[in-house]
């Protein structure tokens, strides 16, 4: 890519976001053909609610992948967040606010520890977040007695359940929350000093350091944000299902990474937008729903899922030819 070349409006990155959205729309049409009513307003709304959980996790994953990192601790930070939410609120609305603050604070603190390990101790992100996933899994299982504790069966506060299920101006409140997150995250990345620092660190951490950017500070904040969004997704999920369960975070690791990548965020960092991850989250969720509409068994979905991701990557995720 030469700098003198005039950038068309639909540059490579924007095209990828467009493709990811188009893939989602095509899948909606396929679904409507297989099962009429699939793409009805209520059908679309139901799929978008499920997509929002992936999308919220993907927000955090986008932040860390933009600096060439990765967060493998998503499953058990999410699960710990869900369990902490129900056990600290015990289903009372009066306790909802402190429980929310506690849960989100836990997520951010765990994420910050990830960031500190990566930035200050020089541990590879894969190892740091993998170990943190194990640590959170052990703590969650141990402290909850394997989900046998008396408060573990508590329900999410009605307020939180209402936030997922009730509608406001025709849209479920959880989608309004997601829209707010999309606006805030996109603004943060595109318009602020913090966003520009994130892209700079992702492109070249050493040059950023020499240019006076506090690289470890940025890294810690980004991982903290990832932990925050994982915990938030955990809260949303207990609001959706009412109760917490063990293993509820497991699907979100693969899906969040896939969503980010399908949305055109470069896995080695420095390029991409959260809007792309949003498109990826929606496309993936529609894909799963379509496969369910085909009555495809588990193993078939697993195979098709992998093939579709590979096909999308081969379409537009290839590296420049260096040889």
């Amino acid at each position, binding site marked *: 890519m030469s700098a003198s070349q005039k950038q068309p409006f639909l540059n490579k990155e924007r095209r990828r976001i467009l493709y990811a959205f188009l893939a989602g729309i095509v899948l909606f049409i396929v679904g409507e053909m297989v099962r009429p009513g699939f793409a009805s307003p209520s059908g679309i709304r139901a799929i978008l609610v499920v997509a929002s959980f992936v999308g919220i996790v993907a927000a955090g994953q986008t932040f860390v992948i933009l600096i060439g990192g*990765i967060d493998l601790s998503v499953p058990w930070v999410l699960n710990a967040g869900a369990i902490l939410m129900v056990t600290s609120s015990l289903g009372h609305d009066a306790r909802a606010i402190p429980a929310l603050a506690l849960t989100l604070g836990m997520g951010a603190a765990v994420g910050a520890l990830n960031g500190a*390990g990566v930035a200050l*101790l*020089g*541990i*590879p992100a*894969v*190892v*740091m977040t*993998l*170990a*943190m*996933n*194990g*640590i959170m*899994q*052990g*703590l969650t*299982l*141990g402290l909850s*007695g*394997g989900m046998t504790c008396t408060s573990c069966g508590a329900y999410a506060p009605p307020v939180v359940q209402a936030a997922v299920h009730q509608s406001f101006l025709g849209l479920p409140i959880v989608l309004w929350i997601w829209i707010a997150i999309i606006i805030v995250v996109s603004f943060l990345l595109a318009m602020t000093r913090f966003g520009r620092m994130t892209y700079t660190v992702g492109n070249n951490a050493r040059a950023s350091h020499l240019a006076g950017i506090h690289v470890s500070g940025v890294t810690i904040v980004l991982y903290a944000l990832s932990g925050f969004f994982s915990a938030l997704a955990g809260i949303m999920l207990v609001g959706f299902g009412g109760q917490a369960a063990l293993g509820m975070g497991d699907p979100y690791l*693969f899906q969040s*990474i*896939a969503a980010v*990548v399908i949305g055109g965020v470069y*896995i*080695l960092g420095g390029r991409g937008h959260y809007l792309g991850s949003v498109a990826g989250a929606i496309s993936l969720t529609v894909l799963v729903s379509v496969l369910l509409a085909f009555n495809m068994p*588990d*193993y*078939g*979905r*697993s*195979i*098709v*899922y*992998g*093939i579709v*991701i*590979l096909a999308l*990557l*081969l379409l537009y*995720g*290839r*590296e*420049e*030819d*260096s*040889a």
Partner: protein
Amino acid sequence: MPLPETILAASGPRRSRLSHALTQNIGLALVVALLIACVILYCVLYIVTQHRLPGGFELTSTLNNTMPLAFAALAQTLVVLTRGIDLSVGGVIDLTNAVAALTLMGGPVSTTLWTIAILGIGALCGLLNGVLVAIGRLQPILVTLSTLSIFQGIAIRILPQPGGAMPPGFTGVLANPNVPLSLIYIPIIGILWAIFRRTPLGVAVFAIGNDAMAASSHGISVKRTTILAYMLGGVASACAGLFLAANATAGDATTGDTYTLTSIVAAVLGGVSLFGGRGSGLGALFGAFVTVMVVNILFFAHIDPLYQTFYEGLFLLAAVIAANVIGQIVRRRR
């Protein structure tokens, strides 16, 4: 950021051969020290809780439990050395394990032929990964994340329920429950690795892991080397699937899943650098033994099994941090 070994070796005064060999293989030296510490701690805990020395049974079961992970770690190492990562290790193990459960039931000849065919399946899986990475020009982590999903799906299609039975001869060779026969696989892996390291392919794998551009300008085909490394990794994963089936004396299309992450843990503990070009298969083998010994230690220390992953995670972090610090001190002293 540590300087490449070659620059340091050229600049400093020459030390004795032993000291030189130690600093060149600091990762391997550290994992051996770690393994010895683990074995001692294990023996102490065993004597305290069981009031006798661990015997042949403990040795045999530890060996048999470790061999699948050892091969998985070897598979991971081959790919990580090229500056890649193989998340499909668990999927290949699932797939080969499932095929083994369905096919290994005839006589010795048929069992041998099917064993070779299963290794071929592993090579094919690796070929798919390698081609997508090298010729498809996709990032290894994304390719193998996708193929993991595909391999897991095929494995469940082949073997929906755990089952099948392993012929006694097969189990007797790969995971003999009575005698610590698996001991012989340690020198075999060591010798094979030493040979591999000296073949043109082995040299090329390390070269492209250190600097693909430089390797390419020295006439090494990066694409061919990458594909072959993934294929060898696939064969090693298939070995892991076979050893797992032999040890469980049955097949299961999901028990392999955990090996994706534990193979990374074992390789990292064994001194393999995730940034490529640094590490050894022997280190990964010892890393696998350390990983299994830690679980044994936690068991005999009467740690609540619910907390097991907590201590494993802490241990992994502590080991990586300690290796970083010691590595830096050793390099600075030269």
